[in-house]
């Protein structure tokens, strides 16, 4: 295991982001919701991203290549971070970044429109299942 670490202890580094495939991401997110039931909060962030660093982005722009955007979904409970990238249009395979290989992380592959919709639906179901501590409609003192 440690052969890959190049003298760098990954386990002790809290800020490493694990980029998962959408399905494992949803599983991890479920776990995260369950772990933070009694105390703690869960944050989920949506961000439009190319998943490329600034230098690569600028190089692609100067060459005139079209940048592909995905919806990067990140989740954290303050202790652990997970993420996935969802794209809508069918596009060519993106080369797996060497850094991610070293970090033993999976980079998301191609996602068709159908898979994107699937993720969207499963995500919604997951949220509905876990957000059950919110108040039911109270007719006596309606907030709105």
């Amino acid at each position, binding site marked *: 295991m440690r052969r890959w670490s190049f003298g760098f202890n990954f386990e002790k580094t809290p800020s490493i982001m694990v980029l998962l495939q959408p399905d494992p991401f949803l599983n991890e997110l479920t776990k995260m919701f369950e772990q933070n039931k009694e105390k*703690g909060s*869960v944050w*989920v962030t*949506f*961000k439009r991203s190319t998943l490329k660093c600034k230098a690569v982005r600028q190089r692609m722009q100067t060459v005139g290549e079209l940048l592909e955007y995905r919806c990067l979904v990140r989740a954290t409970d303050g202790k652990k971070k997970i993420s996935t990238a969802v794209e809508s249009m069918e596009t060519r395979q993106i080369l797996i970044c060497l850094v991610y290989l070293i970090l033993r992380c999976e980079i998301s592959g191609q996602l068709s429109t159908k898979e994107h919709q699937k993720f969207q639906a499963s995500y919604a179901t997951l949220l509905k299942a876990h957000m059950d*501590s*919110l*108040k039911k*409609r109270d007719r006596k003192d309606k907030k709105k």
Partner: protein
Amino acid sequence: MVYIESWDEFVDKSVQLFRADPQSSRYVMKYRHCDGKLVLKVTDNRECLKYKTDQAQEIKRMEKLNNIFFTLMTRGPDVDITEASMKEQAESQQTKKGRGRRQ
């Protein structure tokens, strides 16, 4: 930052904010089970819009906003978002009909 009270205002402003600067905008959802609280936030690091709720019925609205942001972020900021919001409305109407028949 003060919380926005009206949902429609929050949606309008957050979509506007995202379209103005898609590159640096993000949409964050914070859920705290033990307190039964949900906070939605949209920010571009300059301006921050927040909406807070403790009502279960607001989840439907949040789902709709999730879909809007999914669409905006994957298909681009110029995409027509009425489709994402319309689809949701159609679905809720269908469930209502289903309930009525059963009774």
